[in-house]
């Protein structure tokens, strides 16, 4: 019993002789890969952000009805897209984890959650600041804003549940269930809130539809959306790496990584 580790492949990937496509799903392959890819995504995100900001502030014209306030949508809309998209990706990884029993999938979904919650918060914050000059109030119970708020609660629930359960395997699987239940409910919540909103004569102006969308505006939004994609990938990969180390610490390859890290200091 020289080492307390079972076959490295078995730790996260129960079928060591799986198809070669899954080779990177083995954590000891994924860990260095993530480390190599993340900086590239980060650089891409930074460059795209600069281009997007330039488009947003210097190319896109002033909106005829709203004036310059509308420039908030260049971050509001991509943030709202990302927050919803990330939740779906989380649910996807959760389903993969439950079906294939690959632990890396659970780690991925947990690494995505804080970034999703961050985008959700950004969408709410910018929505509120956009609403004050436009609707005259920081918060109106608009269907989009309200479902965004509920999505933020779903993120909080997921994060709180996975953190509260001490046994990692139980935490992984419990989180996966709640992510899936949430994903099934997101459309239900959205449509119910929309229905409720139309009945209660809420705000009639919608943030995305309000400015007549000039092609430069759309361009800026798309560029910033791609920037958020790249940012999400970079930050998730960075977050996944220590999580992998933590969970795989009994294995020899993590020992080697740690020795290298320790020697560097």
């Amino acid at each position, binding site marked *: 019993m020289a080492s307390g580790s079972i076959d490295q492949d078995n730790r996260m990937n129960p079928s060591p002789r799986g198809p070669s496509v899954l080779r990177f799903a083995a954590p000891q392959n994924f860990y260095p890969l993530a480390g190599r890819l993340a900086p590239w995504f980060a650089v891409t995100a930074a460059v795209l952000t600069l281009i997007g900001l330039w488009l947003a502030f210097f190319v896109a014209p002033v909106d005829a009805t709203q004036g310059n306030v509308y420039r908030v949508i260049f971050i509001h809309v991509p943030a709202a897209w990302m927050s919803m998209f990330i939740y779906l990706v989380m649910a996807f990884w959760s389903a993969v984890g*439950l079906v294939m029993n690959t632990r890396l999938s659970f780690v991925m979904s947990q690494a995505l959650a804080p970034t999703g919650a961050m985008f959700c918060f950004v969408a709410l914050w910018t929505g509120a600041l956009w609403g004050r000059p436009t609707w005259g109030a920081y918060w109106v119970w608009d269907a989009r804003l309200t479902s965004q708020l509920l999505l933020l609660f779903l993120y909080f629930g997921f994060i*709180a549940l996975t953190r*509260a359960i001490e046994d990692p395997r139980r935490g992984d699987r*419990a989180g996966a*269930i*709640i992510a899936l*239940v949430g994903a099934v409910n997101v459309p239900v919540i959205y449509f*119910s*809130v929309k229905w409720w909103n139309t009945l209660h004569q809420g705000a009639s102006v919608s943030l995305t539809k309000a400015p007549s969308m000039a092609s430069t505006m759309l361009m800026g939004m798309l560029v910033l959306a791609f920037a958020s994609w790249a940012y999400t990938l970079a930050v998730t990969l960075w977050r996944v790496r220590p999580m992998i180390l933590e969970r795989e610490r009994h294995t020899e390859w993590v020992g080697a990584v740690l020795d290298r890290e320790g020697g560097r200091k």
Partner: protein
Amino acid sequence: MLSTFFAVLRRDLLLAWRGRADVMVTLAFFVIVVCLFPFGVGAEPNLLRAIAPGVLWVAALLACLLSLHRLFAQDYADGTLEQLLLSSEPAVLWVLAKILAFWLTTGLPVVVVAPGLGLLLDLEQGALPVLVLSLALGTPILALLGAVGAALTLGVRGGGMLLALLILPLFVPVLIFGAGAVEAEASGTGALAHLLLLGGGLAGALALAPIACAASLRISTE
């Protein structure tokens, strides 16, 4: 095939009967929460009539939430849950029996006393049947969704608050259609669409929630 279902149902109802004080506490909570509102917003009848559907529904939802943690906690602590998971009958059946027993002992009493409280809030008498119907369709959905949350938070520290955080966002559609039905009836637009949507939601929850709940229980007892 259904012997496990009926055994669990009978036992849980018997337990609820022996511990009927707990059931009464839930009901008392529901009544007190509703009675607090006039003190908070003033006793103006028009105002009370306007907020009555929402108040009744939120109170019903909170009463359900308050008792949800009891659903599996005792069985988890004394090992009964393990034995149920080892049953040769599909887990979905007895999970459904537990949820049904839970609804009969917490949801049904709320449905029964709700019309009386509606009168306290000066709700139009014509809307009372719709109130009862919407609660009868909606509270089972709350129990079904809540059971998944209760199963996931079993034995977790701070489980009660966590349970609330997990499932309250999921309760929002039920609240919208439930309270909306009563309001629509009171304002004369007809509650049929709301009630149909609630019924559809109940069918969906009945089909999916027991499966998720059984999987969650397996995960939590592992």
